[in-house]
């Protein structure tokens, strides 16, 4: 240090100046006082009594403005409380008084080396000033918004926090006092003896269930809302004691939840649901395919079974037919068949005995369609060919005899029998023109000229080569034709 009289350098603790002889004992006392206040401030700063430390450091600097440590510490404390400009000012002054070996160099460089950080501090100060201006002009809401930003950027800015707490405290909203309490509790940790903070906390903690107070207050007319702080209601007392609750309910989180739900639903609808539907459709298709294959296999089996069934049915039917054939079919059919064959055999026997008429009659009783056996049919045809013509001739002769009253019917004409024999003769041989002629004659004699004419004309028209044509013409003339 230098002598205050001659400015000569004086060794430490020298009580007089070797240059001018000035007594320096009082001077050293002053320097010592400055250091005492500095030490006091250092102790206060360590226990975060920043307000007290600032006061002590200011005292120290009033005694000795060259106390670099005190000035640097004051700058640090200002910086800690968010007072950037004050901190820089102290460090610059410190640098001015002690250009070398000064920690202020480091502090200044730390702030100035980062332009972004410096700009941020500058913005914080401007926002704080703007918020203060808004608050002073009655726009508390705007001030609160700005101060929220300020305190979020620099939570240690004591003044900004105090102003925000004050604005919350003045608000009519119940939750705001809780917010103010939270803010104050935060900044009291930075500066435990800040009188403003303590006063605000006192304002918030000075709440007791005074029923008489509320009773009196209820009768008082409501004055200006800005002039007096609203008192917490009894239920609000617990809010100051209980842990801090979340700030006022905002619409934004609720909106975010809704957006999240909508997004989730959209993702589910557009991504998950189609995948699930596709999986289900795929499973259904697989099931349907499997079912179709099973169905096709079952149909195939059914077709095979039906085919087998039809084959077996046919076999059964054939076997039944064979059985029936072996058994001779049903009784009636068997009897008829037997009767037919019996008649055929009888006719054949009569044919062999040259009894053509009886043979023909027996054949006539046989239904030739019932003869399935080729040999039987052959026999039938051969007997019929030989017997029918002869039977027809024989019957014609009998009929003619009955008509003329000759031979067997001598002296007794019998037109009815003649008609019967002649018709039968025509049955066995439709070309027997003799039988036709005498049948016509019989009808003529029995006064049935039309029937007689019919036979005569048939002979004339159908059998023009017959020897009976002339007779027939003669008889027609008799009939007037």
């Amino acid at each position, binding site marked *: 240090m230098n002598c205050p009289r001659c400015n000569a350098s004086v060794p430490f603790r020298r009580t007089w100046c070797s240059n001018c002889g000035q007594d320096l004992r009082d001077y050293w006392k002053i320097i010592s006082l400055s250091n005492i206040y500095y030490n006091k401030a250092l102790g206060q700063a360590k226990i975060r009594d920043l307000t007290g430390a600032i006061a002590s450091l200011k005292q120290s600097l009033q005694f000795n403005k060259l106390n670099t440590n005190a000035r640097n510490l004051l700058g640090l404390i200002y910086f800690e409380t968010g007072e950037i400009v004050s901190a820089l000012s102290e460090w610059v002054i410190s640098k001015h008084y002690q250009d070398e070996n000064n920690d202020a160099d480091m502090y200044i460089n730390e702030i100035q080396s980062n332009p972004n950080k410096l700009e941020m501090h500058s913005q914080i100060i401007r926002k704080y000033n703007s918020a203060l201006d808004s608050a002073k002009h009655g726009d508390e809401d705007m001030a609160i918004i700005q101060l929220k930003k300020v305190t979020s950027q620099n939570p240690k800015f004591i003044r900004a926090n*105090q102003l925000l707490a004050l604005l919350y405290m003045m608000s009519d909203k119940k939750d705001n006092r809780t917010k103010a309490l939270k803010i104050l509790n935060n900044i009291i940790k930075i500066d435990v003896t800040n009188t403003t903070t303590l006063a605000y906390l006192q304002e918030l903690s000075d709440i007791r269930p005074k029923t008489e107070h509320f009773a009196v207050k209820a009768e008082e007319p409501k004055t200006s809302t800005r002039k007096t702080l609203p008192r917490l209601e009894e239920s609000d007392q617990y809010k100051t004691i209980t842990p801090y609750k979340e700030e006022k309910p905002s619409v934004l989180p609720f909106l975010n939840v809704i957006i999240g739900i909508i997004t989730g639903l959209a993702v589910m609808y557009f991504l998950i649901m189609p995948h699930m539907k596709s999986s289900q459709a795929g499973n259904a298709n697989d099931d349907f395919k499997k079912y179709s294959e099973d169905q096709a296999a079952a149909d195939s089996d059914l077709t095979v079974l039906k085919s087998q069934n039809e084959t077996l049915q046919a076999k059964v039917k054939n076997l039944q037919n064979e059985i029936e054939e072996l058994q001779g079919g049903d009784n009636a059919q068997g009897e008829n068949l037997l009767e037919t064959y019996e008649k055929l055999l009888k006719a054949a026997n009569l044919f062999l005995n040259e009894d053509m008429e009886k043979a023909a009659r027996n054949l006539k009783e046989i239904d030739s369609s019932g003869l399935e056996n080729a040999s039987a049919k052959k026999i039938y045809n051969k007997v019929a060919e030989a017997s029918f013509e002869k039977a027809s001739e024989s019957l014609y002769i009998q009929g003619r005899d009955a008509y003329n009253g000759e031979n067997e019917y001598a002296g007794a004409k019998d037109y009815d029998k003649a008609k019967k024999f002649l018709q039968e003769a025509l049955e066995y041989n439709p070309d027997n023109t003799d039988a036709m002629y005498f049948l016509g004659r019989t009808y003529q004699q029995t006064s049935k000229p039309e029937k007689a004419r019919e036979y005569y004309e048939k002979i004339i028209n159908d059998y023009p080569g017959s020897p009976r044509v002339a007779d027939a013409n003669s008889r027609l003339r008799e009939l007037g034709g």
Partner: protein
Amino acid sequence: MDFEAELAKFQPSLDIEQAEDAIYGNKTTDVTDLVQSIINNTVTGNENVKNKSIEWVEES
């Protein structure tokens, strides 16, 4: 608590551009300056007295 009074206690913070003003406006006079001034005044006073006495002596 008076809100207006409390609010009035809050002063605008100095901007960083205004730091120079703050530095120049800083009160730099301390006790050592006073002591130095006293000493200087004392020395000057003694010399004046000496001179005056000399003068006075001369006059007398």
